[in-house]
């Protein structure tokens, strides 16, 4: 007896068999990591997955390193991603990608923005920020699968440099099994009307980046 299954049933079936996916997004306070995290979580939720996310507030946000974590699957317990546990690491700043590189699995995908933001420890604490070539070499050694993308430039070309977070999210989407439709719906749910078009285009630019 043959069964005909709807797309919804297909999605339910997929939810049952997939292992929990873990994604870590890092950057500097104010770069828009929380919005990217919200869109990702929303997209997974729309696909019927159980979802948990975690983010930092308060003292940690004042220009410091920030991280958001998203996990989705059939049933998610811990909202935190383990070391060596992230299927994907997305970073809006290159040094932050290196700082949290121990979160990624050996076969994980890293999507890293080429953007450099100098911490004050460099200007006043004697610390050193790696040169461009040096940083890139380190990133290539740290991540077996690396997409290194000038997200700020891509976003600026689309008219709003602040959409760099969504460019990174678009590139990340290639490494996840969520359908494009879910991403598009999640973006329209999470982004204000007047920024919607730019963010849609930023997402597409990231997704089509090679």
């Amino acid at each position, binding site marked *: 007896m043959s069964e005909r299954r709807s797309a919804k049933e297909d999605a339910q079936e997929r939810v049952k068999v997939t292992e929990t996916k873990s994604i870590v997004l890092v950057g500097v306070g104010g770069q828009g990591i929380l919005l990217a995290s919200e869109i990702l979580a929303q997209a997974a939720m729309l696909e019927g997955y159980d979802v948990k996310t975690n983010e930092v507030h308060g003292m940690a946000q004042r220009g410091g390193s920030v991280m958001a974590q998203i996990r989705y699957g059939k049933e998610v317990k811990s909202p935190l991603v383990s070391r060596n546990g992230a299927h994907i690491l997305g970073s809006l700043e290159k040094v932050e990608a290196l700082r949290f590189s121990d979160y990624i699995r050996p076969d994980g995908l890293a999507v890293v923005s080429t953007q450099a933001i100098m*911490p004050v420890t460099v200007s006043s604490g004697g610390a050193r920020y790696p040169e461009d070539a040096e940083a890139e070499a380190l990133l290539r050694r740290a991540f077996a699968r690396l997409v290194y993308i000038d997200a700020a430039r891509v976003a600026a070309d689309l008219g709003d440099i602040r959409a760099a977070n969504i460019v990174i999210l678009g590139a990340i989407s290639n490494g996840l099994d969520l359908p494009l439709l879910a991403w598009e719906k999640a973006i329209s749910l999470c982004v204000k009307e007047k920024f919607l078009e730019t963010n849609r285009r930023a997402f597409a630019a990231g997704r089509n980046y090679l």
Partner: protein
Amino acid sequence: MRRLMSGNEAIARGAFEAGVTVGAGYPGTPSTEILENLVKYKPDVYCEWSPNEKVAFEVAAGASLSGARSIVTMKHVGLNVAADPLMTLSYISVEGGFVACVADDPGMHSSQNEQDTRNYARFAKIPIFEPSDSQEAKDFLIQAISISEQFKTPAILRTTTRVSHSRSLVEIGERAVPRKAGFVKNPPRFVPIPVWGRPMRVRVEERLKALQKISESSPINRIEWRDRNLGIISSSIAYQYAREVWPEASFLKLGMSYPFPDALIQQFASGVSSLLVVEELDDFIEQHVKALGLSCRGRDVVSGIMELSVDRLRSSKAMLVGRDAAEPKPSPFSDGLPPRPPVLCPGCPHRGVFYALGKEKVVVTGDIGCYSLGAFPPLNKMDSILCMGAGISMAHGMEKAGESSPVVGVVGDSTFFHSGITGLLDIAYNKGHSTIIVLDNRTTAMTGHQDHPGTGRTLMGEPTLAVKIEDVGRACGISRVNVINPYNLEETKQVISQEIAINEPSLIVSRAPCPLRERKRVGEARRILADECKGCELCLGLGCPAIENCEAGPRINETLCAGCGLCQQVCPAEAIVIGGRA
């Protein structure tokens, strides 16, 4: 309908659904968003930021005594401030359901200490609820309100940073019919003078026994039988981590961890070969399990210092079977990277005051807020932090002890209203001569820009009177009161110097709104004329994130610059000018 909600949003939703009509609190990470979300249900719910947690607690207690359901919100250290009303509200009992929502911060992400609020439940002899995700945060709040009302006891809902700030799916429900306020006079119940207080003392113990029956029988405390070789007792977020690390083990999951469900614990212990307690912070459950005469593992393999994680519990698992507890090593690629600690933002009005203090040989007793960051290099101008308000009182104590350097107390505006006023009163009354600087950035900035008695706006979004710090200072008896503009470095330095030198109590109000809240630049972005720059690097001494030290010398990052102009004022070469890229 299911929605993705943070634990704090879910608590607010729970309060709404439980028919709560009054919510009060004082902002504090990680608790702040509870009230910020609850106020979205206005006018069904009245919400306020009170000046401090003690006041907030009493406001909610008053609402409860009149018959309304209420919640009060705070971070763990806030409950220390509210401990006085907590201990006696337990005696006089509540009428409408009353829940104190208290958020602990294991790992000290944004706090000055780690403390375990569960101890307060035992201390005050009241029930405590510990959700482990957002759905439970909502459900437990509703249940806590109901149990509070049924047993006329205050209750605590305890979250941690990871419960409050994690998002997970929540099923939305309907709002219960709220209770109408209408106080019923009953002095033997509400007035704990000894003749009535002593019977209350007895009733507290009887109530605790009745609550224990609930703790034994309610599904909020449940046994999950799986493999019987290992049984784990856990609560809060630790339960989620433990389930991932020991998926095969049996669990006793405590949602209402006090009063302890002794019979349930005994039943669980007798059904498993070995027992392990997994809990974050204090060994609250473990001590009790041992007091019941049961043998268990716990603190010997699960640390009580800093927050737990799946990674840390994997180490515990290894230790449990006698293997090495190898925690994952940090990435080799993170070696030698420049640290990125939190910093005062570009354009922060506090920077000018700390820079000016740096020119003086003084001891600075500081306080809790963004300005705690003034302790870091290159400003290095905060010498102590104790608790809210201590910046003022400790300055006075140092001075009275005969401290050889002048002492300057530095507190924020919200902190001043919270606990600074009584300290200032003490200085005036007891003839101190400390200099007190209130950094008035017109908001409670660190926790995300909440209003306070000085801002002229309520949490309900209504305009109100804006109390002036200088007026309060004068009313406390301080006659030397100066108001300065911290973006004017010359004035700031001059007034601070002058007031430190004078042997009289002095109050300096440094007033400029937080640019992050205003969402606009202070002025036009500055730039450095490379040809004029002598490379003295004095501008770098401001610790401004917008000034980057490049190989060719300092450079101002135009997108980050908030245009406060401090760098222009410190530059001796007049190399810093208005205007972005040339």
